[in-house]
């Protein structure tokens, strides 16, 4: 009595799964034809909002594997008020992220004091050549369009946000 059922029940499980796949379709997704939407918080790629960046280098310094390259020069901008001194601003020359090195930890996004870096769930940017994964500021700015709104928080969360 005890000998047979274990083996037979196992066959039942595989057969049941087969029938379920016939009826309800598979659990897999046929990737290039249909795509799953990643969750809002998914860390897909880092987008750059250029106007907010003051090239303060905080992100570059806090990156655990130093994959952010920033170059900037100082320029004099016209003064805010009439007759004032001309302001000194940092002009961003280069903002590159090497996605071949990036660990997608999100520390740079967090430390940015001026909200210039954002996470986007975009994930389709693989390259056949590893050196092509070094993306410059124009490319990073293009990803700004894919950045979603932050999600609503679960009940009981502290509502006051930064």
């Amino acid at each position, binding site marked *: 009595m005890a000998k047979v059922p*274990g083996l037979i029940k196992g066959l039942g499980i595989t057969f049941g799964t087969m029938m379920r796949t016939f009826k309800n379709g598979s659990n897999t997704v046929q990737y290039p034809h249909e795509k799953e939407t*990643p969750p809002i*918080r998914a860390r897909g790629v880092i987008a750059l909002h250029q106007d907010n960046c003051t090239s303060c280098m905080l992100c570059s310094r806090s990156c655990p594997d130093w994959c952010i390259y920033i170059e900037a020069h100082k320029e004099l901008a016209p003064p805010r008020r009439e007759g004032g001194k001309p302001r000194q601003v940092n002009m961003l020359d280069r903002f590159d992220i090497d996605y071949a090195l990036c660990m997608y930890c999100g520390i740079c996004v967090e430390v940015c004091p001026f909200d210039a870096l954002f996470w986007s769930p975009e994930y389709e940017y693989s390259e056949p050549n590893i050196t092509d994964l070094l993306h410059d500021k124009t490319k990073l700015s293009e990803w700004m369009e894919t950045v979603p709104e932050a999600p609503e928080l679960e009940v009981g969360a502290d509502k006051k946000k930064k």
Partner: protein
Amino acid sequence: MTILNDPVSAKLGNRQQLSYIASQAADARLNVELETEGMTLNIGPQHPATHGTLRIIARLDGEQVVWAEPSCGYMHRGYEKLTEVRTFPQVTTLVNRIDWLGSFANEVPFILAAEKLMGVEAPPRAQWIRTILFELSRIANVSLFLGDLGVQLGAITPVFLAFRDREYVLNLIESATGGRFHPNFDRIGGLKDDLPAGWIDETKVVMKKLRNFCDEIETLLFGNEIFQSRTRGIGVIPRDVALQYGLSGANLRASGVDWDLRRDQDIALAYNKVDFKVWTHPDGDSFARCWIRLQETREATLIVDKLLDGIPSGPVMAKVPKIIKVPEGEAWVSTENPLGEMGYYVVSRGDLGPFRVKIRSASFNNISITPWLLRGVYVPDIITILASLYFILGDIDR
């Protein structure tokens, strides 16, 4: 043969050792005339059963192992050294990668150690969410073990079922933390963010699916007579030996030691707020180890369900300075990770980063028993025993 004081484990341990001695004696009598040379079989570093680059050097007599020795370090990444040149917030993203199947669980003990040094404690809501994610990563880790077990023993279907249902858990982790495999969600003093809306209900649905998966695996694999005959009585670790070799986690509980850090230590996690059963098994063989893990996965889904019902409201971040400097001192925190006890000994000199971090990872201690355990078994049993000991290569080599 000096191990055995406890009568139950003495019987179990003796059975394996004595049968080995008996067969060796029989062979010796036979081999006087048919003296054959043994064969050294390298299992690994590239071998499907070592899931990674573990190398087991086995000296074989026919298909029987005379002597075996694990040789690890092929994937050493030097985390202890790397942490010395990182700041505290940067370390969590590194240690995520130690046990890559249950990443979130790796961060927790480190963060707890750092918090201990700084004297801050995460708000209750953060502690509860940490515990939930900790258990989710345990489920993600062990459910894959349950599937992989099938592959090691020759059944191909369980692993796909495991991947299918593990995906739901990973989706949950991703929607809460943003990272599927490497969440990096813990911060010193709390969590990066609160849960997104609807997450609790979603989790409850998934937990039901996971319990269903556990039932499926139980019928498909654990109820199978072939599986039982492959695992029962194979690789018996008696209680004393398990303790001597410093095993932890399910491997220790399968030898009948009722020891679980989740229950037995007072730590800044929400485990003491819920009731849960710590499963133990008296046998100590491969079947017991696998069975314990199955029960623990099921138990973990129940823990998550209970925790979800009682999440307190409030902030998820305590007050900590923006630039974290950990005061001078030393702290040791260990938790019950999916693979066993994992702990961090953090030494700080008051800098931005730790001065020295010692990582105690479970798998390294768990495989240290293999030379003792593999003596006298057959080649197929090596695979069974390695699978049932359950190690992650990153966790061995770090």
